[in-house]
């Protein structure tokens, strides 16, 4: 429901109420005018009747069209009162409300009861007239509102729509691309546009600072690590080293490598957070899984793991290719690392769901914290506990639902996408 439609709807609703109340008021005003006119008319007739009684001096009751004169026996106080009555309409053959005047008139020292009734405009006609005119005016108003609404939404809101288009094309990754908002004379739109301009500029600025920082941090870490690594390698290749010394250097190298991987993985998590991977493309998940599995075939054979895979054909998703490959690699790596020699690895891909199952020792950490950074079962000390954190982060990015299940030495990771 667009904004203008909403406003129009509110306006239509409000005016309906106004017209309802307006109708009642118009009715009352008209009725009052008509009634007073009617009363004056009846009073004029009463004057004429007065004259008539003076002339004719009727002794019996006179019943005429809309008129009744009854001479009274005793003398009474003069009075005039009005009341409503219903009269059968001759042609329409239905009861119609009329105004009735009842009066006691003293003419020549004798009291007469006079009753006359009549109508200029009947009340139900007033109701009909008011209703009809109100409905007609309301319909005209409705048409006008709809017309104004569509014209306004087209012309007046055009700068707003153009602004929306510009924002839609906004990409945090392209700081060079400046946002050019349409010019508008409307104060609100001007404000909105200048606010958006400032905001996007700030977002770009902050983002580039953040990106630069994480890139520099990673670079600054990897450089000394690279120096250590190369020094160790040269050292190791030197002459006259004892086996013990070589072994020590080798272990140091392994630790250095882990440090480097750690920094890379943390950098990767930051990059995913910074939305640096946002080139969504159509990915044939079935084919990608098979390709990634291919890389592991040798390891699977070397570890004598029995692999069963049931990959449905032609399952496509829209995501960044690098991230999806990373996700799959980490998942399989995880299932391999915690697997036993002669264990099992089952992969299953069905539309909307990917399941990876592997044998392995019971978890000695809370399964709920499995996806947190640096959480790992100590059975595999060489891992850093970041693989599944990266998996989770990628799932979060694409709103995939990931769950973990452990039963009978089988570990199951299920991703619903």
């Amino acid at each position: 429901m667009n904004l203008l439609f909403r406003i129009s709807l509110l306006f239509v609703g409000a005016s309906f109420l106004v017209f309802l109340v307006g109708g009642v008021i118009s009715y009352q005003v008209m009725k009052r005018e008509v009634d007073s006119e009617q009363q004056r008319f009846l009073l004029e007739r009463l004057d004429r009747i007065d004259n008539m009684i003076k002339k004719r001096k009727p002794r019996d009751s006179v019943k005429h069209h809309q008129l009744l004169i009854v001479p009274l026996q005793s003398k009474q106080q003069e009075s005039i009162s009005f009341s409503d009555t219903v009269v059968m309409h001759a042609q329409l053959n239905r009861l119609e409300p009329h105004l009735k005047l009842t009066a006691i008139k003293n003419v020549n020292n004798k009291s007469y009861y006079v009753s006359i009734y009549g109508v200029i405009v009947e009340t139900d006609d007033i109701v009909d007239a008011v209703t009809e005119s109100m409905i007609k005016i309301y319909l005209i108003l409705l048409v006008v509102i709809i017309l104004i609404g569509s014209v306004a939404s087209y012309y007046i809101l055009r700068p707003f729509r153009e602004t929306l288009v510009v924002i839609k094309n906004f990409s945090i990754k392209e700081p060079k691309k400046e946002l050019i908002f349409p010019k508008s004379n409307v104060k609100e739109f001007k404000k909105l546009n200048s606010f958006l301009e400032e905001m996007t500029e700030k977002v770009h600025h902050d983002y580039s600072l953040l990106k630069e920082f994480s890139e520099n941090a990673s670079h600054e870490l990897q450089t000394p690590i690279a120096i250590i690594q190369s020094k160790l390698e040269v050292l190791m290749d030197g002459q006259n080293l004892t086996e013990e010394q070589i072994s020590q250097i080798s272990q140091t190298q392994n630790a250095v490598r882990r440090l480097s991987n750690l920094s890379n993985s943390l950098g990767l998590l930051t990059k995913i957070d910074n939305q640096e991977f946002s080139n969504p493309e159509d990915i044939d998940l079935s084919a990608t899984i098979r390709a990634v599995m291919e890389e592991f075939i040798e390891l699977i054979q070397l570890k004598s793991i029995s692999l069963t895979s049931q990959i449905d054909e032609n399952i496509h998703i829209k995501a960044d290719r690098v991230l999806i490959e990373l996700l799959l690699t980490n998942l399989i790596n995880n299932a391999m690392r915690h697997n036993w020699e002669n264990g099992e690895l089952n992969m299953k891909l069905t539309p909307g769901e990917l399941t990876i199952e592997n044998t392995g020792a019971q978890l000695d950490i809370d399964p709920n914290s499995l996806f947190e950074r640096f959480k790992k079962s100590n059975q595999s000390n060489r891992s850093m506990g970041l693989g599944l954190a990266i998996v989770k982060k990628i799932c979060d990015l694409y709103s995939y639902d990931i769950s973990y299940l452990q039963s009978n030495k089988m570990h199951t990771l299920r991703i619903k996408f």
Partner: protein
Amino acid sequence: MKLLLVEDQAEFANNIKDYFSKEGDVCEVALTLAKAQEKLYSFDYDVLLLDLMLPDGDGFSLLHTIKDKWPDLGVLIISAKNALTDRIEGLNLGADDYLPKPFHLAELNARAKAIYRRRLQNGINVLAFEEIELNVDSQEVMVKETLLDLTRKEFELIHYFIVNQNRLLTKQAIAEHLWGDYMDTADSFDFVYQHIKNLRRKIMAAGGNDYIKTIYGAGYKLKKI
């Protein structure tokens, strides 16, 4: 092989220089882009080892010049920025390969040699070590006129050994060379051991000597007896 290393970390650069010099290759060092340009104008090199973040600019700018002026020069980018975009941009700008820091010097050596060989007009596609002859193009290994039946990984392994002969190759360096990023599984070193065992067996079955020496607790070395 004549190399030019563009790297602002002098210590690191000297390490690499020493490593290559030991094998009889010539490796010169430029600490800045300006220095690198100066050297490129004055001397001929086979392979350029290029760091991306340098004090006077980024290495990409140099790539443009190289493509223009020295199209025959092989380029290997060595960078601590393991950003995918950098890797792609570098390769698009005509670099031959991209090796993220930190790396094993043996790996750097193997990659630089591969670039050098590919760039040579009349490429030496046969590498030899004693009675072992390895043809890079056909991916075949002959020992005393007998063709070895090697798997792809075993071929890569003996290739890596021959390129880095007389040097200690750690199990880790071998594992990374063979499996790259996919290999950080705890038992990777056992797999290296199995491959080496098979390779030894095949070479010896063809009448070759066992040149692969085990260095306890560290790795292996291909060494003349």
